[in-house]
């Protein structure tokens, strides 16, 4: 019985990372209907910047504030720098293409992803980088016989808090309503006085920043980062967003968590090699019976 709980926690931990990335992903995707392949690389860039801060800049920070201070400082710097990178990518790669439809934007996003991925490789080198073990708090806990590290618990709690905050901002505040309105129908929202540029500014700072935070979390939790990891996480985030239903931010969150648990079930009860096949089969089955995702509302096509 204990093992099942432990596996569930493992599944939820993976799921919380997917949820966070999916959230950043579906902020851009929901509003612009743009499959932002570059989001996976925002995540990677965030973890690399976090790594650099931790290794070089944090000597002074950790001496003052201890290990946790270093980690928080790294996360902050990564988030801010990714917010800037997000805006730059939006201005250069996406803004000129809004007018020419969705498919060219996909190719441009792919181009941006390849560009970012190789830029990271050129700057930080092709080798795997490792978050230094000494800088990461490593405390093991035994809650009722279940093996869990403090870091795993902190990350689980932090991601749930971030999800909660963003859920509140998106669902309950007026600015959140503006974002949701733009997601549903950009032109009408603009007619209602919602300034499209501020919405874009918001989603292209919060989205990538969230990716960066997740990047630092993944880096500190697994302590190993590579310049190609963004591609897998990006694909998983896109899957989670679709599973939850396009343009539905809470849906993306739950989609991510469900994806994590599905992967756990596939890996534990079928076989580790076939787990991704299992996950994609479930996704396709869901879409056959609910063509707009789990939480996506089926909007009847008005004829």
């Amino acid at each position: 019985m204990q093992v099942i709980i432990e596996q569930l926690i493992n599944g939820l931990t993976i799921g919380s990372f997917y949820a966070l990335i999916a959230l950043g992903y579906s902020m851009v995707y929901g509003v612009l209907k743009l499959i932002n392949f570059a989001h996976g690389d925002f995540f990677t860039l965030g973890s690399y910047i976090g790594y650099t801060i931790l290794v070089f800049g944090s000597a002074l920070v950790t001496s003052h504030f201890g290990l946790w201070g270093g980690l928080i400082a790294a996360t902050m710097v990564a988030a801010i720098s990714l917010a800037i990178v997000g805006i730059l990518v939006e201005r250069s790669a996406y803004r000129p293409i809004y007018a020419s439809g969705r498919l060219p934007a996909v190719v441009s996003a792919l181009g941006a992803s390849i560009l970012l991925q190789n830029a990271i490789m050129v700057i930080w080198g092709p080798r795997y980088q490792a978050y230094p073990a000494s800088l990461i708090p490593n405390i093991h806990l035994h809650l009722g016989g279940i093996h869990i590290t403090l870091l795993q618990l902190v990350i689980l709690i932090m991601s749930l808090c971030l999800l909660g905050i963003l859920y509140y901002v998106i669902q309950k505040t007026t600015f959140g309503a503006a974002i949701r309105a733009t997601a549903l129908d950009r032109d009408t929202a603009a007619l209602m006085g919602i300034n499209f540029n501020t919405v874009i500014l918001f989603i292209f700072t919060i989205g990538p920043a969230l990716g960066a935070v997740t990047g630092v979390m993944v880096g500190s939790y697994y302590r190993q980062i590579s310049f190609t990891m963004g591609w897998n996480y990006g694909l998983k985030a896109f899957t989670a967003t679709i599973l939850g239903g396009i343009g539905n931010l809470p849906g993306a969150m739950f989609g991510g968590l469900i994806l994590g648990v599905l992967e756990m079930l596939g890996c534990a009860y079928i076989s580790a090699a076939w787990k991704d096949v299992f996950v994609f089969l479930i996704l396709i089955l869901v879409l056959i019976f609910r063509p707009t995702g789990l939480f996506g509302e089926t909007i009847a096509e008005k004829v």
Partner: protein
Amino acid sequence: MKNNTSFKSVRKLTTDKIWLLVVLVLFFVYPFMVSNYYIDVAFFFGIYALLGLSLNIVLGEVGLFDLGHAAFYAIGAYTTAILNTRFGIPIIVLLPVSAFAAGLFAYVVCSPVIHLKGDYLCIVTIGMGEIVRLALLNNPFDLTGGPNGVFGIDFPSFGIFEIDSSIKFYFLIWVVVALGIIGLIQLQHSRIGRAWNCIREDEIAAEANGIDVRYYKLLAFVLGAALAGVAGNIYASKLMIVSPESFSFMESCMLFCIVLIGGMGSIPGVVIGAAAISLFPEIFRPFAMYRMLIFGLVMILMMIFRPGGIWPRKRGVI
């Protein structure tokens, strides 16, 4: 031919004729002037042209968002590899067989999901692509050889005439591509091509005007898959080994870029797109580390300045 050909169109016809001659001459002369390496580069350009044309049916003509097309390419290649190495069936016989296998696979997989719209269909095709790749990797029933793939595939041979050198493969692939182009042009100007374009323009209106949308979407997928299967067959026989790495999600993305950069629904555009995607990495080989960096940048710039593609399709006079 149009009877009242004005002077301008007559002149245009003759220049086209000259250009065709120049191209054909070049096509025949090229392999004898360059080293094997550049013949093989032209061969892989041909493979990507054929794959681009096959995806163009689904993405360019009907507008279905297919990011898992490499799965059909893999089915074609593996059908050829397994049947040839296990049962010794000659490659040429396997050409139609792998086209049929890929087409059948497309029909079986796409039937339950063909009603999905836009991005939902996209993620299903991505899922299908990943399932095929992972299944090949995990070697079910010891059939696909797992990560080592299937090796020892023979060369295609018509009785005594065996295609084993780069030059022969060069002519084989480009003859198949030329046949594909002619077939697709005929389809484009036929009742079926029009039906596909109607579906791309407005699905509801197409259905309400007597076009069986479901049938024609499936037809596009089956034909696209069959053509990709042919490309898989020729690729397998050229490389003599097939392994799952060649059919990754990135490969499907590259095919997607070929159709978009070339020009959706435009056959000459897709061929140029294939040239861009397959020749670019080779020409920029000396830049090594920075090669892919420039490649990503070019993709962005291309979409900013030519969103419609290098040679977009013009709705011409019929």
